[in-house]
């Protein structure tokens, strides 16, 4: 339990590791699905290959789509790609970086499925059990070579099916299965080796071609976009809540039958609401109090994103007060 909590906390620490976590979960789901899937080779000459290759390639496609769908960065990337320029210039390198990262993550689960399929061998045997006569003669000793072409085909198509009565306890079937499985595993291991080599080479050689400084910038701004999107959503939710609360309270107060008069503030009267609550709520509303304002805000957020310059907010000028007595002499000053 503690371990699980630690692992979860680690993965939730930043958005990149969340994506990595989801990617790994999908890969594990892919393996689990393969082991629980009851593969049923049709053992009919015309359909074996079609079915087996279908099972080898359609689920990876499904996992690829799923990998792109569950990744949060897809939405961020699409929005960044499609937004009008407005006040903020667009950097294509950021979009490219996010795209490659997304593709790499989405391709993991499909590769895992294909590799597991090849290493297990069942599907390969189903697809390619129709090995040619020449191979047969060199590797397998038995007297089926005298049969006609069609019968040989039918027979070979049934090799993947252990239960068939023809092949009960047949060494021939086992030999053919072993042979095809070896092929399958060899291909599987080669693909794995190739991928790892590519990955290693990519990691080692990329720094020679890339400008590291630009890389740092690109990574920073792509992380920034992700966090900005999340914070915008959170702020919208908080704003929504305060907007709704004020709206409801206003509605209740509007239902009163009494008349309301306005008078100048008398120094003896003080509204006895808690100062903190008022400040907090008003702060969260940020002055947006009407539907049209909110609509305009949301439209502008997409059509004309604000410039990346918060100097004005960070260095808000403070009002300095100077107290002078009736002679003009300074008693106290904030300056």
């Amino acid at each position, binding site marked *: *339990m503690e371990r*699980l*909590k630690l692992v979860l906390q680690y993965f939730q620490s930043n958005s990149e590791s969340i994506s990595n976590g989801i990617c790994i979960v999908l890969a594990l789901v892919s393996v689990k699905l393969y082991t629980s899937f*009851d593969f*049923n*080779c*049709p*053992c*009919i000459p015309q*359909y074996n290959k079609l*079915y087996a290759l*279908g*099972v080898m390639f*359609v689920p990876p*496609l*499904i996992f690829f*789509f*799923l990998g*792109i*769908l569950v990744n949060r960065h*897809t*939405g961020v990337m*699409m*929005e960044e790609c*499609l937004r009008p320029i407005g006040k903020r210039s667009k950097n294509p390198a950021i979009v490219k970086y996010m795209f490659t990262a997304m593709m790499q993550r989405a391709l993991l689960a499909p590769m895992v499925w294909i590799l597991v399929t090849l290493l297990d061998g069942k599907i390969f045997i189903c697809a390619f059990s129709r090995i040619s006569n020449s191979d047969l003669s060199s590797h397998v000793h038995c007297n089926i070579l005298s049969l006609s072409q069609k019968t040989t085909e039918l027979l070979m198509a049934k090799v993947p*099916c252990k239960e*068939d009565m023809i092949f009960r306890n047949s060494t021939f079937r086992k030999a053919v299965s072993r042979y095809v499985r070896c092929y399958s595993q060899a291909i599987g291991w080669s693909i794995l080796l190739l991928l790892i080599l590519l990955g290693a080479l990519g990691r080692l050689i990329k720094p020679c071609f890339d400008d590291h400084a630009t890389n740092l910038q690109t990574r920073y701004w792509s992380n920034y976009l992700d966090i900005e999107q999340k914070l915008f959503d959170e702020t*919208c*939710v908080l704003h*929504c*809540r305060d*907007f*709704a*609360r004020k*709206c*409801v*309270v206003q*509605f209740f107060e509007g*239902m*009163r039958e*009494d*008349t*309301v*008069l*306005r*008078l*100048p*503030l*008398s120094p*003896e*009267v003080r*509204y*006895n609401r808690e100062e903190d609550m008022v400040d907090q709520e008003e702060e969260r509303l940020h002055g947006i109090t009407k*539907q049209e304002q909110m*609509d305009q805000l*949301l*439209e502008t*957020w*997409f*059509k004309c994103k604000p410039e990346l310059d918060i100097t004005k907010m960070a260095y808000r000028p403070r009002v300095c007060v100077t107290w002078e007595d009736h002679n003009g002499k300074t008693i106290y000053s904030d300056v």
Partner: protein
Amino acid sequence: MDKFRMMFQFLQSNQESFMNGICGIMALASAQLYSAFEFSCPCIPEYNYSYGIGLLVVPPIWFFLLGFVLNNNVSMLAEEWKRPTGKRVKDPTVLRYMFVSITQRSLIAPMVWISVTLMDGKSFLCAFSVDLDIHQFGNSTLIEGMSEVEIITLLAKIPCKNIFDQPNVISREAASRYIKCISQAFGWFFLLLMTSAAFMIRAIRPCFTQAAFLKTKYWSHYIDIERKLFDETCKEHAKTFAKVCIQQYFESVSGEMRSLHKNRSSEDDSDNDDDDKKKGDKDKLLGIHAQDDMNKVLWNWHTCKPPLALRKEQPEGESREGLGPTGADSGPNGLANGHAHNDPKREWAVYYSKV
């Protein structure tokens, strides 16, 4: 137990993840129900097809409707749809968005059922074993000798291992393998179709309507939160209303009792909520000190409930209708509408600052 608690906390953290949680639970329930369900094909030519296809199609419909039932947002959607326009304009895109998101969530459990059923293959086998091309799987010489009806009856028995009695005529394993393959191919194809549809909707949608989408998402969330806050405010108001109403009732009875026992009510039992906490035990008794008095209170509560009209407490002889600073300490007071109909309309003073 700890695991469940953590999961529940995470799921309840916000509305969306709560709905996603329910969606996930229903999908798991659907898969679990399928594995727990004992599929038994009737193996009779007339009923095979209905049973097989019925099992493929009816539970998904049931799960879909259940998804709608369990989703709180359905009543919200209905309310928003049916309300009169009034002062707030209705936005059809918001309604559409809400409907689409509810439908998307409800479709997951049916999809899981259909994929699991197709991958397993039993229902397909049951439904389509009669349509098999017997010459592909059977011994032609033996088949020639059988009548049409006999062939069909035999084909219908293929899904049932126990009662299939003619292995020489048809190879049962080969036939069931063939149909299972077709079923699994359909299953994978169905999954691919659903995933690519979801992909189109989710990943390609930003190309078309991103700004409008942000708007509709915000306002649909707003409607949900507003409804919840309205309910909360109503509840709080009802609590306060009830408290004050009951206090006034006790006081009115205690007032009667006091006049009977020739006592004068000394404390100004103000109906100000803040003072409740400072009241001592004596004040909490609200002037009722004897068994008979209490009995009268309880009897009258049922036989003669007080009207739903809170009275504003008036210290004797003072009018609250003055506007000057002396009348100012009344301030806006949360007591609601419907005060006694024979009171004149009161004037409240609201103060604003010139700053």
